[in-house]
């Protein structure tokens, strides 16, 4: 593999940028994380050639699991063509020489920022999330010692206090992204800032879900077919966002929509946030617009 890698990466970096020892360390951490679903396993996060907060955790995880035969897809807010996605894709093309794709169904490794693709994931795929703040209890309890203890003793009542506050203030649970979940009936987990629309997709997903937080030096995971339950109250059950509109390009009415301002007179349109899904629907002739 390394011989192949050397041949394919002309610019003098080791395959996938990280040295082999680092990758092994990260893989060990990933194994730990997979063994205890939802548990935040600490790891020695490395300096990457981009600032913390730009996806260094996700990139390190991807770099550790990717092989020369993998097909990589990178999305940012659902789109394949935004800055973050383009740069990370270019980074891996340069340092690994792997094939990249925009098609969710073709990819073996998907690095995502803030979305899960609309096309259902399948067995054998890995989705890597970029995580800014891994600790779900952070804004409620600032002490790291205390939050670790709360995880160890499964003291998660305070998370419901936050949801209570939402209902008391807004009449419904207003948290719309990074919505807290319980993984495998045990660990409270932050699903990274994906919209809560995507939370149900995490539940019993056939793909392996890995979460990397570079600045906070934590990796956690949801193994395939693991139960992921969003927190709620009996009388205020968990609900996902709904739109009255459907996608202006492909006509889909069951996807996560972005609002796009089209002029300065209040004109706007709603389109799918997942560009690949939208594009393939239009290519298949299901679209209505354009």
């Amino acid at each position, binding site marked *: 593999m390394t011989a192949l890698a050397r041949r394919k990466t002309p610019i003098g970096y080791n395959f996938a940028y990280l040295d082999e020892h680092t990758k092994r360390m990260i893989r060990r951490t990933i194994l730990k994380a997979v063994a205890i679903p939802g548990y935040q396993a600490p790891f020695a996060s490395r300096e990457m050639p981009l600032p913390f907060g730009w996806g260094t955790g996700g990139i390190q995880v991807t770099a550790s699991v990717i092989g020369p035969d993998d097909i990589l897809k990178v999305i940012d807010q659902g789109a394949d063509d935004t800055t973050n996605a383009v740069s990370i894709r270019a980074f891996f093309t340069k340092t690994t020489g792997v094939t990249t794709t925009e098609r969710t169904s073709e990819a073996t490794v998907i690095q995502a920022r803030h979305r899960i693709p609309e096309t259902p994931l399948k067995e054998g795929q890995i989705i890597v999330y970029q995580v800014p703040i891994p600790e779900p209890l952070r804004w409620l309890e600032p002490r790291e010692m205390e939050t670790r*203890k709360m995880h160890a*003793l499964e*003291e998660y*009542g*305070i998370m*419901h*206090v936050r949801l*209570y*506050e939402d*209902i*008391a*203030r807004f009449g419904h649970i207003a948290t719309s992204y990074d919505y807290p979940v319980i993984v495998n009936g045990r660990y409270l987990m932050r699903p990274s800032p994906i919209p809560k629309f995507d939370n149900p997709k995490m539940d019993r997903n056939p793909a392996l879900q890995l979460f990397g937080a570079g600045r906070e030096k934590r990796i956690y995971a949801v193994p395939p077919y693991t139960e992921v339950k969003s927190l*709620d*109250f*009996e*009388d*205020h059950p968990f609900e996902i966002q709904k739109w009255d509109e459907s996608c202006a390009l492909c006509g889909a009415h069951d996807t996560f929509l972005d609002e796009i301002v089209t002029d300065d007179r209040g004109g706007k349109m709603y389109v799918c946030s997942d560009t690949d899904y939208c594009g393939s629907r239009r290519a298949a002739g299901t679209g209505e617009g354009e």
Partner: protein
Amino acid sequence: MTASGTPEETGPLLRVSSVTRYYGPIVGCRDVSFDIWPGEVIGIVGESGSGKTTLLSCISARLEPTMGTVEFRSRAGKMTDVYRMSEAERRFLMRTEWGFVHQHPRDGLRMGVSAGGNIGERLMAVGDRNYGAIREAAGDWLHRVEFDVGRIDDMPTTFSGGMQQRLQIARNLVNGPRLVFMDEPTGGLDVSVQARLLDLLRVLVAELRLSVILVTHDLAVARLLADRLMVMRRGEVVEAGLTDQVLDDPQHPYSQLLVSSVLQP
């Protein structure tokens, strides 16, 4: 274990045996022993630095004593050493059977959470997941501590000191603890607010048959609330007995000094 009848009535609720705490060579408290029975209020008085707070921390499972044991009677009637429990059990005990009222409400409240959320926290911590029921309990308790129920969604920062203290008390009592520790609950409040709070506490203690361990330097507070009194000095209990007895006929020279130091307006 061999108890007959109602287990709660067969013995003391909390047994403190020879509790001693050193801070290096410095004595925090030394060889303190006492029992507290269900429904009883014990006052611990003494000047500042006499070890009252150290003792309270030791018996409320917040600071492990250097020597001695603290045993609590579970609902099943069994005496258990609180420092021998697993941490999970101890923390569970602390938020179900016990309450702790801090001197400064800011230490005991979540300042970024509304009054209702503050009261509901303990309910949610033990698994209550019905918003309507939690809110109803919170409203009920706000009423009991003499709040306008319309303030249920207000932040504690918008409350006065006395209101914050009442909120802290409601937050501690919402899930029916059997033992409440209070560290100078009326310290820092002006006298009229103090009187109202004491009145409220007296009613609640009687109504709920609470056992209370009350630390105070204010003899008037002790006189009003406590059934029994312990006078502490330099980490040791110098005199203990019924409140009226200790205050009206102090035996130890230090107790005499303490009682005679009270200002008469």
